[in-house]
Structures are given as structure tokens and as C-alpha cells.
């Protein structure tokens, strides 16, 4: 239970921020504070979208030149709501060591195709042994319900195993035939209950070029990033309009406190409400 809660910590951040923001909007009488609350509320949504788009182990969705001709991002949306916190101990080291050049680790063709086609669970053990990483066990343990067959105990014995964490360190530019793939494994480990749905859909949308994207790098899903950039722009615009209206309110009423404003309006209700400019 505790693990269940901790593993989704970013969702908790989203919820807490969202409630804080809404509460500020409703409870604060100062107009500027209301806008700040609104901003916090919107920020929670940004974080929510970033969480959706994150693929564990995936790098920022920026095209890397080496793979210039294969510029399709790894298809679909893999809901990586788990970051290194739920990776096994062995994997944790790998990530920390390889974090800076994780993007140079390619997916094996079969591996990626299998993930893209939503068959990850069954396909894993069929891949060449090297395709599984040392952390496979811990990953699979985390998400047994999504990947019932993905306990690659044989993987640990594979000779390729050693290549995995080391190879990228040795070579600046990895070649696609290094079959080991951290990212591929981690995709399978997006242990949230909806991940099976998501994988199925990835297949639906992008199965067409799954094979072609196979040798590519693992990226985070770029679409939520784009969406949230749009939403940020909207948020900035809203803040700007809101604050400028607050400035105008201050000019017209001499206060930005809601209670005082209401009082002034009520007072004005009995006579004719005075316009900003003395009426003609």
C-alpha cells in the first residue's frame, strides 16, 4: 500500500498542487492572490501532462543527429509514471551511471517492434537473451500483472549481459546491433493499471512504422510536451489578462480586495453606478 502510494508520487504532487491552487482561488479575497492561485492550479496540470508523457528511461524528444534518417520518434505513448524510484537496486546504478548518455542506447529491432506491437509480455523471452537487462527481474516483479511472462531469469546468464551497461560507455556512438536495451525493458515496467491499455494503443497508432523505428532511440512521448507548451502559453496569456484587469480595477476602485469591491458596488447600487469616466 505504501509502495503503491510512493510509486505514484508525482500524481500526489499534482493533486496537492491542484487542491492548493483551487483553495487559494476560492478563499483569497485579494485579486492578485486569486491569480496566483489560478497559476498554481494550472501548474499542477502541466505536471500532470509531463507525467503522462514521461517514458521511463526515455530521453527528451529532441532529434539526435546520428539517427537523422530515422527521425520518427518511438511510437505511441508509454505511460512512464515510474522513474528511477521503482527500479531495482542493480538498475538504479545503471541509470545513475548512464544517465547522461542513456540516449545512445538503442533498442534491438525485435525488441522495439515487440513493444510497439503490444506483445511485449510474450515476446520478451523469445528475444535474444541479451535483450534483457539485469534489472529485468525487479521490473517484472513490479509489474507482474502487466507482464506475466517477463521474468527473464535466463537473461542473467547471457554473455551479452556484460555489454549492456558498459558498451555505451566505451563507444560514443553505439551501433544498432548492440541488442541491449534498457529502455525497452523499462517500457514494460510502467506498472500503472492503464499501461496495458496504452501499449495496445501504441500498436494501434504506430504499428505501421514500428519496425522502422525499432532501431531508434527511446524518447519520451513528445505529444504531451507540445500540448502543455500550448497550455503554458494559454496560462501566461490568462495571467497577463487577469493581472491587467486587476490593474484596471485598482484604477477604478482604488482597491484589489474583493470585500472592499463588493462593498463599493453595493453602495453604488443605490444610486446610479458611477462610470469610470464621468458620464456625459
Amino acid at each position: 500500500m505504501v509502495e503503491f502510494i510512493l510509486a505514484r508520487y508525482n500524481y500526489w504532487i499534482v493533486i496537492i498542487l491542484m487542491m492548493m491552487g483551487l483553495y487559494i482561488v476560492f478563499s483569497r479575497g485579494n485579486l492578485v492572490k486569486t491569480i496566483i492561485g489560478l497559476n498554481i492550479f494550472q501548474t499542477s496540470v502541466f505536471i500532470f501532462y509531463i507525467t503522462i508523457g514521461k517514458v521511463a528511461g526515455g530521453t527528451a524528444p529532441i532529434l539526435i543527429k546520428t539517427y537523422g534518417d530515422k527521425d520518427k520518434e518511438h511510437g505511441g505513448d508509454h505511460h512512464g509514471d515510474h522513474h528511477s524510484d521503482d527500479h531495482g537496486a542493480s538498475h538504479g546504478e545503471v541509470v545513475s551511471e548512464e544517465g547522461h548518455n542513456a540516449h545512445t542506447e538503442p533498442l534491438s529491432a525485435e525488441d522495439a517492434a515487440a513493444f510497439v506491437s503490444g506483445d511485449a509480455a510474450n515476446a520478451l523471452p523469445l528475444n535474444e537473451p541479451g535483450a534483457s537487462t539485469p534489472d529485468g527481474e525487479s521490473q517484472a516483479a513490479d509489474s507482474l500483472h502487466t507482464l506475466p511472462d517477463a521474468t527473464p531469469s535466463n537473461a542473467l546468464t547471457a554473455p551479452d549481459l556484460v555489454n549492456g551497461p558498459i558498451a555505451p560507455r566505451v563507444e560514443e556512438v553505439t551501433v544498432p546491433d548492440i541488442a541491449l536495451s534498457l529502455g525497452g525493458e523499462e517500457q514494460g515496467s510502467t506498472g500503472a493499471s492503464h499501461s496495458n491499455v496504452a501499449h495496445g494503443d501504441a500498436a494501434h497508432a504506430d504499428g505501421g512504422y514500428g519496425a522502422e523505428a525499432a532501431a531508434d532511440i527511446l524518447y519520451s512521448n513528445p505529444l504531451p510536451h507540445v500540448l502543455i507548451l500550448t497550455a503554458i502559453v494559454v496560462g501566461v496569456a490568462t495571467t497577463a489578462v487577469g493581472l491587467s484587469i486587476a490593474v484596471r480595477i485598482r484604477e477604478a476602485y482604488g482597491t484589489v480586495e474583493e470585500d472592499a469591491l463588493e462593498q463599493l458596488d453595493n453602495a453604488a447600487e443605490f444610486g446610479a453606478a458611477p462610470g469610470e469616466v464621468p458620464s456625459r
Partner: protein
Amino acid sequence: MSLISQLPVLPVLLPLVSAPLCVLLPKGRMPWVFATAISWLTAISAVALLFHVAEVGSVTYNMGGWAGPLGIVYRIDIVGAIVMALVALMAAAVFPYAKESVAFEVGTEQSPAFYSLFLVCFAGLIGVVATGDAFNVFVFLEISSLSTYALVALGAKQDRRALTAAFTYLVLGTIGATFFVIGLGLLYQATGTLNMTDLHERLTGQDNRVVRAGFAFIVTGLGLKLAMFPLHKWLPDAYTFAPSAVTAFLAATATKVAVYAMLRFLFTVFGFTFAFMDVALTLFILLGLTGMFAASLIAVFRDDVKQMLAFSSVAQVGYMLLGISFGTPEGVAAAVMHVFNHALMKAALFMAVGAVFYVTLSHHLSAYKGLGKRMPFTAACFIIAGLSLIGVPFTAGFISKYLLIQAAFEATLPVSSLFIVMLIVASSLLAVAYIGRVAYEMFLSDPPEGVNQVEMPWTMMVPMGVMTAANIYFGMDAETLTSLARQGADLLSMGGAK
């Protein structure tokens, strides 16, 4: 690349592209001439699109040549084409009206900014209708909302309360939009797509908490935007204090477009088969009915005529929700018809209110004393549109209420149909009460001493007259539109898929 293949995108692009150009024009009359010309061009293309869609069925347009579901797709079905034509025609009527009214209420100093804001708002509203991409709906909703906040605030020249009204609208509108985005995020998480048709395909048969939460967020968010009864707090103030031309345009289009977006999400995206739908529809019956009565009752006791009509708008949204809540193609068709007809009557009514303000400098009921003698044309327009609001035969309002009642009898509802029909009629009687109060002042009170009949600028008279005439015309000859709405509703409720 013939013009007809670009038609779906034309009504969005025309105002959107011309809005920044409008800012560059010199102060004075030029921006108005420009904006009016654009609004007419847009109206022509939107009507052409309506005829085109009525002929060949739904039209799909791939933005930038990227096909869906990956690209952004504009998809216009019959209901969409009707709503789009409605918005464009309203703009074409309100822009000419705006000339004198805005020069009087806002001044000509800010006219380039005012008209470009107006165009942006217009473009956003059309965009919501045109797009077939769920996230794009949010973007266009915000484009129109952001400009609306500023437009409402421009009413401050007459009454500084416009500023607080705009601020409240901004806060609530943003919360609504953000709720909508949260819902979209959840749906995206569950399906991995944002294309509406695609969403529908993948949501079919799915029923889990993610989808349910997404549904709830989207319905609440859109509910805020369309002023569903308990979420309507922003509407009366915003409509009351905005400049008259802005109110006439917003009342006729903004909530209507949100209703259409709601229809689209309920029926095209989620579909009748969605397990959670019953809960929502039952809620809509309840909220629709409460809204009809509560808002109408408030309207009866308002002395500010503009405010009275604004509350009446909230009540009328209740009728639309009621139509949706029946969950039948008949009900949806009635809701669409009411969207259309309510836009006609509210545009005419708010134009009349603006005309009265132009002459008397007041929205208060006392300013309407003896208006039948002072401003016979305006008073006549007000009364005809008011009758349409009540739902008197031979006016547009009658048609949609008739359809609504018919749909109520045909639908299977949690409560007795007869009960609902009686409530519809009873709330119409409340409309008699508040329109009657104004009518009494206009025709049965004597005008104050020493005031004579006043001349109105023709740019205000003509749009008002056209709107009033439309109320009568669509009350007499609703056959074409009704059958179109019916076709569209059938299409919507089949999930929008061909």
C-alpha cells in the same frame, strides 16, 4: 486546391488572420469597415459550407495535409455546419450594429483593438465548432474566452462593475478550461489519441476510473463554459456590464458554441453506449430543470432589463441541457434547434436593449416607460423577440419548444414525461412574467414629460430588424432547418462515425 476543398478552414482563418491586421488600422471608422467586411465574407463562406455539407454529408479537412489521427483534422458535420453558420451570421449582423453602439459606449479611441479582439473571439468560436481534435477545442475555447474577458472589461467606460465582472469571468472561465484540459489528459492517458473520431473508437467498451474521471472533468469544464445552472455565476454579470454589441454577440454565440462542444463530447466522443452516460444525463435533467426555474425566477425580480435577459439566458441553457438529457436523437435535435432559435431571439433582445441604452443611457426598467411611443421600432423588435422567447406560435421559440415537448413525450425518462412537459410550460410562463413587465412599461406607461420620438442610426435599426424578422421567418418556415437538425442529431448520436 479548389476553393470548395478549402471551405472548412476558411471561416476560421479569415477572422483569425485579419485580427492582427485590424490592430494596424488607424483609429476611427476603418477598423469597423474592415471587420464588418471580414465578418460578411466569413458568413458567406460558412453558409456555403452549410449548403455543401447538407449536400455531401460530413466534410473532413486535414490541416497542413497531415491526415488524422496523427494530424489535426477539421471535421464538420451537419450540426457543426449549422452552428458555424449561426455564429458567422450573428457576427455578420452584430458587426454593423457595433458601429454606433460601440462608438457610443466604448469610444473610437480603442477601435482598432476592439474590433481585432472581436474578430479573435469570433475566430475562436468558429474554431471550436470546426475542429475535430479534442485539444484544439481547448485552444480555440481559450482564444475566444481570453478575448471575451477583455471585451467584457471594455464595458468599464459605462459602469466600472464591468471590470469585476470580467475578472470573475476570467477566474471561472480559466478553471473551466483547466478542468477540461485535465479531462483531456486523462482521456489521452487511457487512449493515446486526441482525434475525436479516434477517441470514440478506442473509448467504445472502455469503462474504467480513468475514463470516468476524464468524462467528469470534461463535463464540468464545459459546464462552466456554457453556464450550466450551478456553474453560471459568471454569466449574468458579464452579460450585464459588457458593451451592448458584445453582449448581443456573446449571448447569441458563446454559450451556444459551448453547448455544441458538450454535444460533441457527449455523443461523438463518448457515445450513448458509455456506461457513465446515464448518470450524466440524469444529472442534466435535474440541473436543466432547476436552472430553468431558478434563473427565470431571479429574472422576474430584476429591475435591470439587461440583467433580466442575462438570467433568462441561464434559464434557456436549461432547455438545451434538457434536450440533451433525453438522450435521444429527437432530444438532441430539439436542443440544436433551441441553440439556433435562442441565438436569434437573444441577439434581437440585446440589440434592442443596446438601442434603448443608446437613447436613454440606462438599462433600468424605468427607462422603458412609454417606449412604445418614443422608439416604436425598437419596442416592436423587443416585443416580437420577447414573444419568441416565451414560445408563442409563429415565432422561432415556439418551434424549438414544440420539438422539445415532442421529444420529452417520446423519450423514456426516469420521471414521467408529462411532468417534465408541464415544467417546460410552467417555466415558459415565468418568461411571460418578465417579458410582460417590460412590455407593460413600454406600452402601458406614459413616457416621461418632454421627450419626443427619437431617431436611431440605421446601422443599429437594420440588424435589429433583420434579427426580429428572422425570429418570425424561422417560426413560419422551420421545415428545412428542423430536418437538417434531425439529420445532424442522428449522425451525432451514431457516434459521428460515417
